[in-house]
């Protein structure tokens, strides 16, 4: 019993110290002000790597999820004779929930794991140490651009996901199943509010972006520099990010839409 309590205490302490280290790394990376011009260029490069190169998976997934929503929504709504509301259903599900959450999960798998592996490999091959000895802070040179790139890319990817998803819903609902095009789009336009739905969805997306990218760069920077350590850290990035996104989503939804 005593051992069990001691074990719980030990793991709590080690997790707290992990969190503290992660916070310190983030603070030093984000609030270190040095040569903004160079860092802006590095950030643009990273936006290409983590953002632009994730476009294909985001667009394809968005299209299919929109199409599935159209199909499922149609079969349910026709039971009540209200298939005109399909546009509203598709758009609200996407902007409020599926857009931010699924994009963040895909981003964690596609870009987050790659960030962890890349930074981890740089650590394992002493590239981070050699940056330090050249007098360049790897937190600012390596971690900060990747962090900012993630924070900027994910919300934009999420917007693209939602837009493509709506088109997918229209493709199935309007073109295939024959819902009236005018009522599909008019209903969508009337029911989706900018501040309530789009803006709240964006807030979620920004929060997920910070959390997922933070987890990814921290896991990469803090890993044990061996092949096994890199494998474990990459897995951790995906698992922790996914859990964090889903948990935070419930919390944010409760705050944003709970009183309705």
């Amino acid at each position, binding site marked *: 019993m005593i051992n069990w309590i001691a074990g719980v205490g030990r793991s709590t302490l080690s997790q707290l110290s992990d969190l503290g280290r992660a916070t310190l790394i983030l603070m*030093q990376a984000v609030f270190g002000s040095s040569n903004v011009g*160079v860092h802006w260029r590095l950030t643009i490069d990273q936006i290409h790597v983590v953002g632009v190169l994730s476009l294909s998976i985001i667009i394809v997934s968005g299209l299919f999820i929109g199409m599935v929503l159209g199909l499922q929504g149609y079969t349910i709504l026709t039971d009540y004779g209200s298939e005109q509301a399909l546009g509203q259903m598709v758009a609200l599900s996407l902007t409020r929930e599926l857009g931010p959450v699924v994009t963040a999960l895909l981003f964690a798998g596609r870009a987050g794991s790659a960030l962890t592996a890349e930074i981890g490999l*740089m650590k394992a*091959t*002493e*590239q981070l*140490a*050699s940056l*330090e*000895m*050249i*007098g*360049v*802070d790897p937190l600012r040179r390596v971690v900060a651009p990747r962090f900012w790139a993630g924070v900027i890319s994910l919300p934009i990817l999420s917007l693209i996901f939602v837009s493509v998803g709506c088109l997918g819903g229209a493709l199935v609902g309007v073109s295939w199943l024959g819902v009236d095009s005018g009522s599909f789009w008019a209903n969508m336009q009337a029911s989706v509010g900018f501040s309530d739905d789009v803006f709240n969805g964006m807030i979620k997306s920004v929060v997920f972006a910070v959390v997922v990218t933070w987890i990814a760069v921290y896991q990469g920077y803090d890993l044990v520099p061996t092949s096994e350590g890199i494998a474990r850290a990459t897995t951790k990035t995906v698992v922790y990010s996914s859990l964090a996104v889903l948990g935070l989503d419930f919390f944010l939804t409760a705050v944003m839409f709970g009183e309705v």
Partner: protein
Amino acid sequence: MTTEAFVEIRDVVFRRDQRVIYDGLTASVPREKITAIVGPSGTGKTTLLRLIGGQLKPESGHVCVDGLSVHSLKRSALFDLRKRMGMLFQSGALFAELSVFENVAFPLRVHTDLDDDLIRIVVLMKLEAVGLRGAVDLMPSELSGGMQRRVALARAIALDPEMIMYDEPFVGQDPIGLGVLLSLVKQLNQALGLTSLVVSHDLQETLTIADHVIMIANNRVAFQGSPDVMQTSADPLVQQFLHGNPDGPVRFHFPAPSLENSVS
């Protein structure tokens, strides 16, 4: 001022997890000389370089570089100090996504305002010194381990530092490369007035160019002085190391319980 030691290490205690690496290590590295750090493997010679570079923090004790206490410096001051040191890593640690040229140009681009033409001249000069001007457009992955380390040396001297720390520079070099590197270390030291710290297992070769030797064994400095004094030292520990005897004060075996206990 110039006669004092460039690096002063006092009573440093350092542990990795529970294992004691240094227990009160005191040593000094004279200015503008070549200092060899030798000792059995696993005694933390690389660790010493990392302590001097401020990448590791000792449990207690001081490390001063050119009068500055490394571990009480602020982060930005520490990075400024590191610009005055070059370090050659065991693996070379070149940036994998940059070409040989860009690797050597990197410190110049980050820390100076030189224009591209001037950077090109400096990079080619540094590569010429290590005999790899022809490899300027290759990627690090296209080079052998020994060549990578020579490129890393060119990068380490790109900013003309005041001190260079070489971590096992001679590993993986053929006899010709070894000879060239030895004379290069010597030349750099004399021509630029550098302070050089060489960690190496190639004891005899290193001693031919060293002005000063620090031997680390059993968690402390076992010998400190000139190579000549080392050769004639009566200390059994030094003699064991110089002649490669398996028995003596230096333990070849990693600490372990007795064989009978482990087996039964």
